Structure formats: structure tokens, C-alpha cells
């Protein structure tokens, strides 16, 4: 599919002189036509600033934004033909829902009949037909969210921008609305940039996503690829529960790296960071998701076996989380589908991990929360 939105070396600095702060350092991205592309990262990573640069609400300090062959970089927002949903929804409290949705059409000076028809189409699309005369304050959070979406889509924009659209909804509604947004986006077939700090939301809704940190894009890929093979310890930790094990490098073997664990076991593990050139004696951090950790007398063929003590376990509804002490600095987490027969706190348990489920990173890398 052709690239629709091309961003090259985008940079945005705020303030002047000594107080200059770079919100976006150097961001390059390509978004395909019709794709739902997510910018994901912790607060302050520059994702919202990037979105506002695409919208034209901020002017870039350097870099270019090209959309469908048209240079967006210095085009004012009202010429870009975009739709945007704000975190606060930005619904006009002094206008009826009809007038809210009709706003972009009126700005385009369409005839009254056409406006009426398209507003009703848009209200149908978000399943809120018949509420024309209401005011935004009379709606629930989820309904306000849909109106904001209808208002952004009604005039047929070429690109849809969503800035943390679900952050003001409660947990249950959030899950429901993200499915809805996905459905509406697919029905409208519109290229969409979605900004969120919620990794679960990003993983579930996106075609592809970019993980941002400190003003830079750290990794781009499909949700599966980024979750399974994070590019750094930071990404691994940010995207979900993560186990980290300490080890020492013996040698790099092609795309793999041979390491020795503190238990003395030697395994060959895929490199998580492809740019890393491991050297003998160097510390390496190994990463595995808790749901890939097996417990019990025997693991799979060729699995790594670690002896540990069961420290405690917790029911979390669908899964049981085991916390194991393997003598390292951090406990090992294992998420299992069911209760282990004979599991008892303080008992010795064998932990099994397939080397293919592990990823190795330079030992100097730390999770983002810990580097601050």
C-alpha cells in the first residue's frame, strides 16, 4: 500500500534561550493509506506534540510533513482538511448536537439541505440518530465521544487525528468505545493517527504503532511484533508485564547471543536490539513475558530450567500470577491459565522458559521508570 503520510526528521522546540525544551527531537514516520496508526508512549514523550504538528496547531522547528504528495509543513490547519478528536472532546457547550456536527460543513459553506443530510448520516454512523436538539452537557461521556467523532468525520476529511480520545471514560466504557472507534474507522476507511499512553489500548486498536520516548520514535511495527520483540528493555517494560534476568555475554552468534545465567546455564537467545554488538564478559539483560513462563516438573524441548521458590500467588480472574524467587534481584512472574496442583508458598518450583521466547539486551539498558 502507498505511504500516505510521510514525516521526515520532525523537530519541535518550545521556549527560547536557556529554557528551550525539545518536545519532539527527530521523528520520521510513514503511515499507509487507510491504516490506523498509533503513537504510544509515556506522558511527555512528544506524542501529542507530534499529533499537533500533523494537525498544524504547532509549527515545526525543523522537518517536513507531506500528506498525499502535498506539503503540509506550513499549511494552516483549516486548509489541511483533517478531522480531529480532542482529549476534552472540545464540543461546543453553547450549540446543539446538530450545530456541533454541522460546524465543519458550515465552515465549508455547503447548502442547508446538504448539511442536514450529511449531519444525519454522521449521527447514524455513530449510532446517535435523533439527538440533534440536545446539548453536549446532556450526554454521557461515551455519547460525547461519539459526537466528537461524528463532528470530525462529517465533512469527509482525508486524515483523522485522535488525541487520547478515551482517557475521560471509565474502564469498561473505554474497552467498548475503542472497538467502536475501530469499527467506525474501518467503515469510513480513513487514514487515522491515534495518540495514547495506554499500551493495552494501542495494542488492541492499531494496525501499526510507533513507540515514542523522550521526543523520539523508539520502535515502529505491528502490535504483535512490538509486543513480542521489543527493541529495548524500556519498550519491553512499557508494553506490558516483563521479567528481566541478569546474565553475562559469552559471544554473539549470528542474530543470536550466547549468554551464561547466574545459575551457570548457557543458552543462545535472539537479540532484542538489532543494533547491539555483544562482547565477551559484557552484562546482558534477558527479557520474557510472564505468560511465556512455564512452571512444573518438565518444560518443553530445550527449555531453560531455573530453580525457584514460590513467594506468593494471586488470582487475577482469567489467570493466576505466580511470584517466584530465583535468587536474583527481581522476582520472576509467571502468568498461568490455571492453578498449579500442589502449589504452596515456600515450596521449590522449577521454572521453564523457551530460549525462543527470550530476548537479550545490553545490560546497561533499564526500564524507563528506573532511568529517571
Amino acid at each position: 500500500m502507498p505511504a500516505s503520510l510521510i514525516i521526515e526528521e520532525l523537530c519541535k522546540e518550545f521556549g527560547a534561550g536557556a529554557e528551550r525544551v525539545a518536545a519532539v527531537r527527530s521523528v520520521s514516520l510513514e503511515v499507509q493509506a487507510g491504516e490506523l496508526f498509533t503513537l504510544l508512549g509515556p506522558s511527555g514523550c512528544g506524542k501529542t506534540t507530534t499529533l499537533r504538528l500533523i494537525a498544524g496547531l504547532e509549527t515545526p522547528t525543523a522537518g517536513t510533513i507531506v500528506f498525499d504528495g502535498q506539503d503540509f509543513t506550513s499549511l494552516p490547519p483549516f486548509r489541511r482538511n483533517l478531522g480531529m478528536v480532542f482529549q476534552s472532546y472540545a464540543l461546543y457547550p453553547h450549540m446543539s448536537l446538530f450545530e456541533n456536527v454541522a460546524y465543519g460543513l458550515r465552515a465549508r459553506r455547503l447548502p442547508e439541505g446538504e448539511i442536514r443530510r450529511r449531519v444525519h448520516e454522521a449521527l447514524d454512523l455513530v449510532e446517535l440518530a435523533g439527538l440533534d436538539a440536545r446539548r453536549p452537557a446532556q450526554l454521557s461521556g461515551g455519547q460525547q465521544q461519539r459526537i466528537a467523532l461524528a463532528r470530525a468525520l462529517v465533512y469527509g476529511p482525508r486524515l483523522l487525528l485522535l488525541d487520547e480520545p478515551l482517557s475521560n471514560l471509565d474502564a469498561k466504557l473505554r474497552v467498548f468505545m475503542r472497538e467502536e472507534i475501530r469499527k467506525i474507522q474501518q467503515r469510513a476507511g480513513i487514514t487515522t493517527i491515534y495518540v495514547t499512553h495506554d499500551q493495552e489500548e494501542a495494542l488492541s486498536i492499531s494496525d501499526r504503532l510507533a513507540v515514542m520516548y523522550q521526543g523520539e520514535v523508539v520502535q515502529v511495527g505491528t502490535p504483535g511484533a512490538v509486543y513480542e520483540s521489543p527493541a529495548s528493555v524500556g519498550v519491553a517494560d512499557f508494553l506490558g508485564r516483563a521479567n528481566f534476568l541478569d546474565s553475562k555475554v559469552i559471544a554473539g552468534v549470528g542474530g543470536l547471543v550466547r549468554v551464561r545465567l547466574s545459575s551457570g546455564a548457557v543458552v543462545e537467545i535472539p537479540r532484542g536490539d538489532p543494533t547491539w554488538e555483544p562482547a565477551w564478559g559484557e552484562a546482558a539483560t534477558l527479557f520474557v513475558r510472564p505468560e511465556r513462563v512455564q512452571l512444573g516438573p518438565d518444560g518443553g524441548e530445550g527449555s531453560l530450567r531455573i530453580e525457584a521458590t514460590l513467594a506468593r500467588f494471586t488470582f487475577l480472574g482469567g489467570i493466576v500470577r505466580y511470584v517466584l524467587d530465583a535468587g536474583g534481584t527481581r522476582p520472576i512472574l509467571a502468568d498461568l491459565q490455571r492453578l498449579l496442583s500442589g502449589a504452596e508458598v515456600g515450596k521449590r518450583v522449577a521454572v521453564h522458559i523457551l530460549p525462543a521466547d527470550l530476548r537479550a539486551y545490553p545490560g546497561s539498558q533499564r526500564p524507563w521508570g528506573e532511568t529517571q
Partner: protein
Amino acid sequence: MRSASGRWWWRLDPVATVVHGVAALILLTFLVYPISRIVLNSFLPLDTPFGLGALTLEHFARFVASSLHRKALLHSLTVSLAASVLALALGLPMAFFVARVRIPGKTLILSLGTLPLVVPPFLGAYSWILLLGRNGILTSLFKATLGVELPSIYGAPGIILAFTLGYFPYVFLLGYGALSSADPSLEESAQIMGAGRFRITRTVTLPLVTPAVAAGMLIVFMQSLGSFGVPAVLGGEYYVLTTLIYFQIVGHFDLNAGGAIALVSVAFTAVSLFLLYRLTERRGYVTVTARTYAARQLEGRGIRCLAMTYCLVVLLVALIPQGMILLTSFAERWGRGALPTVYSLGNYRRVFTAAWGPMQNSLFLAMVATVTAAVLGTLMAYVAIRKAGRGRWILDLTITLPFIFPGIAVGVAILSGFSSGFLILSGTWMILAVAYVIRRMPYIFRSASAALTQIDPAMEEASATCGASWLRTSTRITFPLMLPGVLAGACITFSTLLGELSTTIILYSARWKTITVAIYEYLIADLLGPASALGTLLTVAVLTSMLLANRLLGRTLGSLFRMV
């Protein structure tokens, strides 16, 4: 909580009952009774005891029959409306410039913009006579250099000018608040949807600030309607309702007729206040919150120059009266020129001997009234919010009743109530103090209520569960937490009472003259020097008290005036 432990009954209710009782007694005696008297009296001919057969509409009929009354009503409405509209024209652009254009010194502009509200407006009114009166500096200057005859400052033009410049900060401050706090994404989304700047201003920005700006205009209207000093100084033969009341009471000794006029002006204030509440209710617009970017600042060179020039010119003109007073106070001799010829401290020496009494009186009365209002207002706020339950609205309504009474009407009511009957206070300092307390208690009540509603009741409950008695909880937890709000309210009360004239002018006696009455008398006698010296001293005292309130709250001067 109560059902859980019977001891709560013992700890809470005696106190609440006593406070309730005292509150009811005070409100009935000093608020409900005089207001009832003024209402009844205005339906009675002069010097007639109450009787159903004696009731008459003759005082109100004058608004049809007497051209003096008709005109006064018309004049009051004209100058107040004109002042509101002009305050909008002056204040809204300034609000926009300060909120939305990148200009230096915004904090200073906001503080200076508040200054006209701090200084009693009748002081400023006189300096316009100095500048634009028959022999005014500017009048002479225009005549000499351009041969232009300026229109007379007396009557409507002068009153409107003084009201506009004295009260436009209400529109400015409220408009600034709305413009700077509106969610910027509302305008950004309009931009994204393809709207140009003009469309955004017309369809989004203006509608969003309309409630706040309209509220500002209503406050200007009410303040203008209730002002006595400005039309008394600048009116001449041009009577408005307040000066007519004064004329009826001081000139004709007809308290009943004065009361009827006061009631008519109360009716207009009541309608304005009702509209104001409707507006502020509707202002609770935006429900969803999000981390938003600060309002976008216009950066263009042209707009920045325009904004800066506009603000400076408006501030300069609005602060001319204060400058004139200061200058005059140091002038020993002033020829026909633009500046005095000889400067000295003579005026100050004169007022320190001649007006020492009024200065002491003002300080004493303001102090006593402030402390009383602070104690009573806080207690009543506590009762209303924590103890009154469903009866709260009665207390709320009663205490805030004086809001709809222009200052002079409060004076008339108190005089009606306490110059005859079971409690005679006229001629004493008590009558002034009572009037001051009644007039200002709503403000303290308001700020104490606001402070109290922000205190989580769980803090008091936590204290109680730790075993503290009601007394301990309230003295160690509740009142200390309320204190900053109450003290700030008290400072504002103190400073407004120092500059009070509208109520005082009805109630003062030879022994109990205040500094404002002294200034008024100097002005009437054309003794500008001493009047200005006293005015300067008053301004300094008022400003000190205001700045103290400012410090206590850690807020800008402007935010102290958000009375609604």
C-alpha cells in the same frame, strides 16, 4: 453518624441551637425588621402611625405625577445603562488583548486595571471637574489652543464618564477570566474543521465569553444604580434615584418618601441580580477536563503594538483621577496652568488637625464593623453549610438580602428601623456600625462559605474519630482552615468600609462623621486641597488593606473582585 453514637447529639446540637438562635435573633432584629419597616413606611404618609386605612400609594404615585421623580428614574437608568455599554466597549477589548496577545507586564496591567475598583469612585469624580469642569485644566487648554468649547461635565456626561472609568474593570476582569480559562481546544477544533479566524471569533470565542461579560455589565449597572457619591458630586441639577433619596430625607425629612424611592431602585437591582444568577448558573459549562495547552497568544507585530497601546491608554485615562488627587493634595497654590505653582504639605497638616476626628471615626467604625461581620459571617456560614441542612436556603437568602439593597437603601432601612420604635440608635456610632455589618456580612458569609465548602468534612470527621470534642475540632481544624478566606474577606470589607459613603451619608451625625463625609463636605465647600489630602490618605489605607488581603490569599488583586 448520629445514630451510631448518641453522644453526637450532646456534642453538636446545643451549639447548633445556640448559634441558630443567635443568628436568627440578629438577622430578625437588624435585617428583617428594618427592611420590613422601610417597606411598610413607604406605603404610609409622613408622620402617620401604622394602620390599614392609612396605607397609600402616594409615594409611588409620584413616579407618575412628579417630573422630578420621573426624570430621576429615567436618569438613573440612562446613566447606568450607558455606563454598562461603555464599560463593555472599554473592557472587552482590553480583556482580549491581555488574555490573548503576547504583551509584556500582564500582571501589572491586571493590578493597575483593578485599581479603579479599590478607590472610592466619588473621589475620582471630583478630579474630572478639575480637568473638565468650567474652569478645568483641559477645558481651558482646549479653549486656549484649539478654540474648542468642551461640553459641560456636569450632569449625564460626567456621571457616565466617572461610572465607566470607575467600573469598567468588572467587565475587564471577568472577560479576562473567561478568555484566559476557556479550553483552547474549542478554538483549535474549529480551526481543524476549516473555520477561519473571523468565523471562530463569531461562533466560538464570543459566545463562550458572553455569560462572563454580561455578568460584568450587570455588576456595572447595579453599582452605577446604587452610587450616591458620583452623581452627588457631578450631578448638579441632574437628579438620579440616589440623590433624590438623599434630597427627600435630608432636605424634606421625609423618610417614608425616601424609602419608596429606595424600594424602586431595589426592584431594578433585584431584577439585575436575578439575571446575574441565571447567567452564572449557565456558566458551569464544560464538564470534561483534560490537560490543555494554555490559550494561544497572538504574536503578530501589529496586534501586539495595538494591544499594548490600547491597554496603556485605557489605564492612563482610568488612573488620571488618582493622579489628579495625589497632585492636588500636594498643591499649595494652583494658577491657571496645567501644574500647581507651589507645592507643600500644608493640606496634610490642615486635615490632620481639622479632620482628625473623622479619621479616627472611620478607623474605629470600619474596625468594629469588620470584626463583628467577620465573626458573625463565619459562624453563620458554618451553621449554613455544616448544620442547617434543609433550612440552609433561608439563612442564605436572608444574609444575602442586602446584596440587592443599594448602599443608600440600606441606610434608609436602618434609619427607618432605629430612629423610632423599640430600639433607638440614631445619632450614635452603633447605627453606623449596624448598617456596615448588615451591608458587608454577605461578603464575609460568601467567602467563608466558599472556604468551608472546600474543606472536606472528612477532616472534621477524622478529628472526631480521634476523640476530639466538637469545640476542639472546630477550633483546631475547621476555623484555622477557613481563616485565610475569612481574613481576606475581612480585609476587603475593611477597605470598602473606609471608603463607604452611600450608607453613611444617611446615617452620620455631627459627632460621628467619617472620613468620606469629611471629604464630601470639603468638596461641597470647594476646598479641594484638604479633600485631596484626605482622599490620598484614604486611598493609601484602602490599598494597604487590599494588598494585605492579596498576600493572605496569594492571589492577584483582580480575583478578589470576583464577587459572583
